[in-house]
Each structure stands twice: as C-alpha cells, then as structure tokens.
C-alpha cells in the first residue's frame, strides 16, 4: 500500500485540469459553472448540457413523481451514458446530484447506475461523495452501491492515492474512529459486522484479512458473499466495455481492469479477476499526458519496449497500477529483478498471494471451473516468471504448502509440481511437516504417473537447491543467502541437512514405490534420474555430501529386465566412484576436515562387489554376497550353474544380446552354448558388440574389465581400512 503512494504524486497533477476546477469548486454549483464555461466554449447549447445544468441547479426536495422535466433529463443523461459514457465533468455533476439526495434516494440509485465514465473519473467528486456519506442520510444499500461503483471504476480514477483512500473511506464512513492497526481494524470490522449485519464490502475486507491473519478472522466467510462481492461491477461492467468498444482502443488500455478483460473473454458468472493477468497499463499512457509526465521524469513501464530504454529510464520508472501485470512482460521482470526497493516485490507478492489464495483455496460456488484455461495460463505464466527470475515468490511458496494439504493430486498437476520444484531450500526442521507428509500420502495413494511426476519434481527441486548452493556458497560455513528476496539465510551444515533429508525421503519413496508398482520400468528410470543427480553432488556442485541409494533401489535396477536401467545403474555407480575418490584425494591434500562416513564407503563397496560379482565374475549367491539364499533352495530350483545366471551373458536384460551375438559369432552352430562366450577372445568381442549396441563405457568404467575389477575392489577396501582409523 505504501508503494501505491509514490504513484499518487505524478498522476495527481496529470489531472490538474480537473483539480483546479474542483479545488475552486467547494460548492457543487460553482464547480459546475466552471465546467459550464469551458463547455460553452467548444459546443453550442445541446440538450445534454441543459440536462446537466438541470441536475446541478435543481433545488432540494423537488418532487420526483410526475416530474417530466426530471424524467426527460435523466433519460437523456442515461442515454448518453450508455452510448458514449460520461465526461469527467458530467460525472462530477451527476455524482454530486445523486449523493446530495436533492431529490431523494430513488433518483440517487438510478443515477449511480448510469455513471459510466467515458475517459477518467476525477477523484474530487468521489471525495465529496464520501463526505456526503458522512452526512449519513443515505440508506445503507445506496452506500453499498456507491462503494461498489467506486471499486468498479477504481482504475479509471485519475489520482492514485486511492487504494489506501478507499479503505480509509470505508472505515471512516462506517465509523468515525480512525483505525490504525490492522488487528484493531479486524476487531472493529467484526463488531461492525455484528452491528450492521453482513455488508458485502465488510465481508470483502474480512475475507482479505482472513487471507493474511486467519487467526484473527475466525468466522467462515459465506460463499454467497463471494457472489455478493464478485459481481459488484455487474451494473456497470457491460456498459463499461460497450463504451470502451465505441470509444476505441486507446481507452481500453486505460481501463484494463482485470474483470473488464475477463468479461470480454469469458461470460462465466464467476469472476476470474485474479486469474486474468491485467494488461500492463498505466494512467499516464495517453499521448498528451506522456509528454506532461516525461517532463515530470516519470516513465510508465508500458512505454518501454527495449532493454536499452529500460536502462536509460531505470531511475524514473513508474510502476503500473496493477502489479499483476508485471508477470506479463519480461522487461518489467528485468526491472523488478534489479530494482532496489523491496516495495515492488512486496506488492507483487501481496497481489499474487491474494490471487492464488482466492482462486485455488477459497473459491465460491463457482462449480467446475477448476481446470479452466485461465487457471492453466495463470500458473504457466507464474512458472515462466519464476524461471525467469530464477527464484520463487514467498507468497507462492506459502500457497503451495497450504494447497498440498488439500490437493487431490490431479488438479493442475503439471503446474503445481512445476511450482513445487521451484521452492527454495526448506530448513530440515520444517521440511518433513511442510513437504514430506502431504507428498508421501499423495505418492503412495496415487497412480504410477503421479509417482513419476513427483520423482521428476523432486529431482528438479534438488537440482535447483544444489545450483543455488553452488552459486551462493562462498566459503563453507559462511552464511549462504539462498534467495535474494526472501532472505532465508542458513549455514552450510543446515543446507546439507536439508539436502540429506530430501535425498533420504526420495530413497524411501523410491524403494517402496518400486515395490508397490512391481518395479515398473518407467518409475525406475525416473528414480535413476534422481540418483544421477545425487551421485554427482560433490564434483558438479561442490557439496561435500555423498548418499548411496537404498537397496530397494539398487537391486531392482540391477535385476531389472531392461538393459538400459542396468546400464544407467552402472553409470551411477561409476560416478559415485569418481566422486568418492576425488573427495578422498581432496581430503588428503586440504586438511580441512569434512568427513564422509566409512558407512558410505562400506555401502558403496558392498554394492560394487555385488555388481561386479553378478555381472562379471558370475559369483552370484556366493556366501558374503548381497543376496543370499540357502544352498538347498538353490539346488531345488534345478538351475544349472545358478551362480552364473546373472552375469552379462545370462542376465535376463542381456540374454537377447548374448543370443544375438552367439548367432553372429558362430552362424553354423546348431546347439547354443552361451558359456562359450566367456572364453577370453569371444568375451572381448562380446564387449565390443555391447559397445556397438550403445552400452558404451559405463560397464568398462565400473569394473575396469574383469581381470582387475577385483583389484580395484581390494584397493578400495584397503583404503577404507586406512581411512577408517
């Protein structure tokens, strides 16, 4: 709201032509005479002018019924209003007439209904009108009508200190007291509520506060209030659009309220005011005024269309009335990114938080609008923005936490998961409560595709966190600010904890998920994606942290039926090896002690042993291996040489290749003997053949070919012994 104010100054004086009129015109008649003069200048006496004159001069207490003069004039004004809209002067006259109740409330309502501004609305008469409200003869319904009108034409009001003012208005006319603190305001509102009953505007304010401090507003805002407030512009909006259409496009931009746009696009009853991004607009975007304003060294964003321009005007940018419109243009975002004062971002956050909350957590009886285009586009736009700024908005983060707790897992899934993957690092103390609990429940009850989607999302989340780390971390243990705007500072160890939490969490999800889905290949590949990120945390992102996959992931990958998974597992193991070795060496050279637990090495070695033994050394099921089975059980199975059954030749994933190779190698042979591939010569050919099939290098790197595979293994174990001490 503070931000609003700095806009008031320029635009105030834009409307100088009006202000001088109204400043001098303390009394309605006087101000009218001024208006009259200038009107006389340009046009001859036309009936409309006469009509206005009538309304400005008509005495108080003139009877309405059967007063044909009144009838004719009003009809005339109405006709003009609905056809071309009313000029600022006309509006001030009519508003003055209406609110002064000179001819009772009947005409007042009728006039208010036809106040369709043609260009802009001078703020002076509104202020005066509010003064009339203060007099308090006006029935509550009419007061409500007036407030609704003000809200409708809000962005056409020439002076821009209104957002503050409007609330000021409402408070000041529903109660004399001047309320400062919000807490008091809410309390006040609540008691007013109980006093005046449910007034739409009160409820609106309450609902607004309910978003920000729900602990204060406990009453449940009835959904009918939504309608009560949402269609506050119905009497006018259609007329507004009509008028704008007639008066041509240059006005359309000046009055591009979200809902007017909306009404053009969708005729749905429910107003998607938040979902519709307002067109980037500004008050001072009509040619004459821009000269005026540029002389006053203020350039509205809308007039910039190149980065160069942005740079030279950067010191005198006028932010638009609707912060939401920033999301639209990349220029605006660039500005937002480099601008110093937080207010812009705060305003954007404010708007965004309210929009998200209203549309996705707090919707009225709009019915099945959920997957509507507006929602999609809105969120996509938001995603675009966040990727552009390379960071999430705190409001969207807060929204996500709330939304996850009531999400059905399918509504707008791609967008929600997309947003989720953008959230900044969550402190390990919070992460379980905010993320893991809702996600876990969704993960295990939802379909395979959701599981894959979530894996993808968490993988991206990890990637972003690591990237942030690699960007912001200067030296370790120095605070790293992970998000320039929401200044969450956390220590390296804190960050490590969060990452660890995340990786372990995914490990749990993955192993149980694979089990429930019968080790589905699609899911498995998404899981392996994640571990491809994990295994490189040290080398790629300089985070001294190595976490091995749980057996629930390792074994399904190792024994999976498709060679690709096995291949990728091999690659992952290889990367682990590289990371570990380099970590070791670094630890040796630099004395700074970060410790990778021997447990990690044990796990790694163990996996490696299992892998090498079953793929290369045909030592499956031998004692000391990972998978152990009772001798007699294995014998019962009558598998000849069961220990070979998972080597590169007999592994179900590679069997087909082996057979193919066998046929190529010995075309003549009738009886197929795959073991014959194992002889050293064909063996090397076979490996060549596997290379050619696209399984390039990974195996080689994991086991460094069968002969010295073990040696490496020993080397490692040896190391471990040393490091252990």
């Amino acid at each position, binding site marked *: 709201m503070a931000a609003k104010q700095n806009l008031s100054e320029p635009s105030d004086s834009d409307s100088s032509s009006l202000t001088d009129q109204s400043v001098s015109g303390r009394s309605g008649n006087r101000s009218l005479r001024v208006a009259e003069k200038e009107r006389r200048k340009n046009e001859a006496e036309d009936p409309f002018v006469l009509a206005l004159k009538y309304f400005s001069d008509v005495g108080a207490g003139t009877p309405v019924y*059967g007063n044909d003069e009144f009838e004719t004039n009003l*009809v005339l004004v109405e006709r003009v209003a609905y056809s071309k809209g009313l000029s600022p002067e006309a509006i001030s006259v009519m508003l003055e007439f209406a609110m002064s109740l000179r001819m009772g409330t009947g005409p007042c309502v009728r006039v208010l209904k036809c106040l369709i501004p043609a260009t802009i609305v001078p703020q002076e008469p509104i202020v005066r009108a509010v003064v009339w409200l203060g007099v308090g003869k006006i029935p509550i319904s009419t007061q409500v009508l007036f407030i609704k009108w003000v809200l409708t034409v809000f962005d056409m009001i020439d002076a821009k200190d209104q957002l503050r003012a409007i609330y000021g208005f409402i408070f000041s006319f529903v109660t004399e007291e001047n309320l400062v603190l919000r807490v008091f305001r809410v309390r006040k509102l609540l008691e007013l509520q109980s006093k005046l009953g449910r007034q739409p505007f009160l409820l609106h304010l309450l609902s607004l506060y309910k978003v920000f401090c729900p602990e204060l507003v406990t009453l449940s805002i009835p959904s009918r209030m939504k309608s009560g407030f949402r269609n506050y512009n119905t009497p006018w909006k259609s007329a507004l659009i009509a008028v704008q259409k007639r008066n041509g496009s240059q006005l359309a931009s000046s009055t591009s309220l979200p809902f007017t746009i909306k009404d053009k696009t969708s005729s749905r009853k429910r107003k998607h005011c938040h979902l519709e991004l307002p067109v980037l607009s500004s008050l001072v975007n009509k040619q004459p005024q821009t000269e005026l304003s540029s002389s006053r060294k203020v350039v509205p964003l809308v007039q910039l269309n190149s980065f160069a321009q942005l740079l030279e005007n950067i010191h005198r940018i006028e932010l638009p009335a609707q912060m939401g419109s920033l999301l639209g243009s990349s220029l605006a975002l660039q500005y937002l990114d480099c601008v110093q004062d937080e207010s812009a971002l705060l305003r954007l956050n404010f708007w965004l938080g309210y929009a998200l909350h209203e549309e996705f957590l707090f919707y009225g009886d709009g019915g099945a609008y959920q997957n509507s285009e507006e929602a999609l586009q809105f969120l996509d736009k938001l995603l675009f923005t966040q990727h552009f700024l390379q960071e999430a908005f705190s409001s969207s983060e807060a929204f996500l936490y709330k939304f996850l707790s009531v999400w059905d897992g399918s509504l707008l899934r791609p967008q929600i998961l997309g947003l989720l993957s953008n959230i900044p690092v969550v402190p390990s103390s919070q992460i379980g409560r905010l993320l893991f609990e809702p996600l876990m429940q969704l993960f295990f009850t939802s379909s395979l595709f959701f599981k894959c989607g979530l894996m993808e999302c968490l993988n991206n989340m990890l990637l972003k966190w690591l990237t942030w780390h690699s960007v912001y971390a200067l030296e370790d243990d120095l605070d790293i600010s992970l998000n320039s705007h929401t200044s969450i500072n956390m220590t390296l160890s804190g960050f490590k904890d969060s990452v660890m939490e995340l990786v372990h969490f995914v490990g749990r999800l993955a192993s149980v998920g694979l089990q429930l889905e019968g080790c589905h290949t699609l899911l498995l590949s998404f899981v392996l994606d994640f571990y491809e990120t994990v295994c490189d945390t040290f080398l790629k992102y300089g985070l001294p942290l190595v976490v091995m996959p749980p057996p629930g992931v390792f074994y399904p990958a190792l024994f999976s039926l498709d060679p690709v998974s096995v291949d990728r597992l091999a690659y992952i193991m290889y990367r682990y090896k590289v990371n570990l070795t380099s970590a070791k060496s670094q630890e040796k050279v630099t004395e700074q002690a970060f410790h990778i637990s021997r447990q990690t090495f044990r796990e790694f070695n163990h996996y490696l042993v299992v892998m090498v033994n079953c793929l290369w050394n045909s030592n499956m099921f031998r004692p000391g291996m990972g998978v152990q089975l009772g001798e007699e059980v294995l014998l019962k199975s009558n598998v000849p040489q069961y220990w070979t059954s998972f080597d590169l030749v007999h592994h179900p994933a590679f069997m087909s290749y082996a057979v193919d190779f066998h046929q190529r190698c010995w075309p003549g042979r009738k009886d197929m003997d795959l073991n014959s591939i194992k002889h050293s010569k064909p063996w090397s050919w076979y490996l060549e053949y596997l290379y050619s099939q696209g399984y390039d290098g990974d195996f080689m790197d994991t086991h460094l070919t069968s002969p010295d595979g073990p040696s490496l293994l020993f080397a490692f174990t040896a190391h471990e012994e040393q490091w252990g001490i």
Partner: protein
Amino acid sequence: MDDSAKRLLQRFMRRIPTQMLKTTLEKWSRLTVAQQKSLDFTQSKWALTEALLDICEENKWTTKHISELEMIYVIDNPNQGMWHAFQLMDPEDDAHSVELTQFKEQFKSHLSELIRHVSVKIKKHTDEAVWIRIAWGDSYSRPNHLKPTYVVHYLQTPYVFVTSLTSKQKPLLSQALVLSTRHHAIKDANLSGKKFTAIRDLLMRQYQQAFPTKYPSPLKEKNQTVSNPLIEREQAGPAANRLQMACEAFGDGMLPQLQSAVYKLETKFRDQTNKTMTEREESFRCVVKFASTNLLESLRDCASSGIASTPVTPLLSSIPLKGRNYFVITDNSPGPSSQMHQKTDG
C-alpha cells in the same frame, strides 16, 4: 386526457417489460392497426410512453381504459406483489347457485353502498376465475388508480385471493364479498406468497398428491434406475420408503412454489439446565421462518434425503395439508410444541 390517467399510463409503462408490451396492447384491442404499426417497440420505454400518451390523447381515453390495460397485464402475469388468501365461512343454502352476472352487480352495489368513491372492474378469466380490480378513494378524494387492489375468486369455492389491500379497506371488501357470495363470514386463511398460482393451486388442490394404493405406485417405477449389477445400494429399501412418505406429505411431481413458512411460538421455555428461563411463567416467544424459492420441494427433499426425520412432523406436513404457511404454536396444543424440537433440526 386528465393527469391521473397520464400518470397511470406512465406507471404502467414503467412496470411492464418491453417485450410483453406488444402482446398486452393487442389483447387490449383498442389500438387501431395503424396505431399498432406506428409504435416502434425497439425504442426506449420513455419514447414509447410518449407515443402512447399521444394516442390516448387523440382517442380521448380515460383512466377507465388504461386501468383495463393494466388489468389485462396483471391477469396475464399474476405472480407479483403479495397475495393473501381468505376463506368464506358457512355458506347460505343458495350459495351454490350464485352466478357471474348477479355476483357482479351484487358486489358492485354492495361496495358502492359502503364507500362513495370506488371504481370496480370485474373480468372473467378463461379458467373460470373472476378477477376484480378495485381502485379505492375515500369520502373526499376520487379513486386512486395508482395502487389498486386485485381480488380473485372462483365462484362456488370458499377461497378468495387478494393483493395490496390495506387494513382500512379490508372490512369493506370482506363485507361486499360475504354478501355477494351468499356467505356469513370470511376469515384469513393464513396463506400468503408472491406467487398467485402457487397459492391458488395449493388451496384448490390443483397439484399432484400421492396416496398409498395397492397398485404399484408411479414413485417406485420412477426411481428404478437400471444400474450395474456390481453396484449394490445397501439402504435402498429405507430410501424408497422415505421418498414415499415425503411424497405423501408434500405431494408428487411439481409442487406449488411457496416461498416461506412462518411459525410463531408462544410456548413455555423448557430447558432444565437454564433455570431462570424455565421458571419464567410468561410464555417464551420466538418466530421460526423457513424460506426458499420453492419451500415445499425443499422440504420434500429434506425428508426424502433423510435430513428431516420421517414420518414428517405434522408441523411441516400441515403446510400443504391445511393449505397455510403461517402458524402459531402455543402450549395448550401440546402436540405441535412437543414436535417443535425435531422440526427445527429438520
């Protein structure tokens, strides 16, 4: 053409929607074809009014004619304003043989005996309904056509439907009605609403009621939905039973669109936890109002969906049964007051 006529026309024009204007004028059948043609119904009402005023001027039409016009419009859409039902009591022997012409003159004469300045228009509608438009004046002023009273009566039935009648005019109208329909008394039927048709249908029993019969009732056939053999509704029996009861209580199919029902309680406050209230001897007064766009259907739905307990409490079922929507519940009739509780949660 005098001022009052002019104002009457203007007011009428303000009331009537433009799309209805054409047909109504045709029904009125006073305009010549040329005049009909001259009117352009696309232009604004204001202009139309002007045009009509001119026509009236040149034909020297008076309030009489214009009130005709209004009457036609009201008869065609009676569902506006607040309608109240009255019931004629203990008829005389020849009450049955009252026929229109004699009723007309009787009513007019009786009313004009009672009050000097009154103008009455009586018109018979196609459905045997007798429509009466009364513009009241008092002993000094001429009849005010701007707020006329409308009365609808079906000869030989005990019911009269009235809209916009002031307490001052009520006795006059009652007397005229009683005399001209050969009855001895008239009383308020405690039924009122915005929809004339609803009130009429309720009292004239022109809506479908459901009765228990030994033949398979249409209800059961209606809600026999061909469903998948794999889906089984556990409580199908009770549900059907509830529906049957609800329909017996409130009727079947489309129900008269009643908007509200009011229960005025004047009972002793009973609550052992709250001594102070319970020990007061003057009765505890409160008003319970049910409101809905179609109250009877809502109530039926409540009962059939099990929100309200079945069999339906007499308090609710007596709305259609007694044909009234205003009740006063006192202690001396213990029945209702005892059911008060289960009604309010219904």
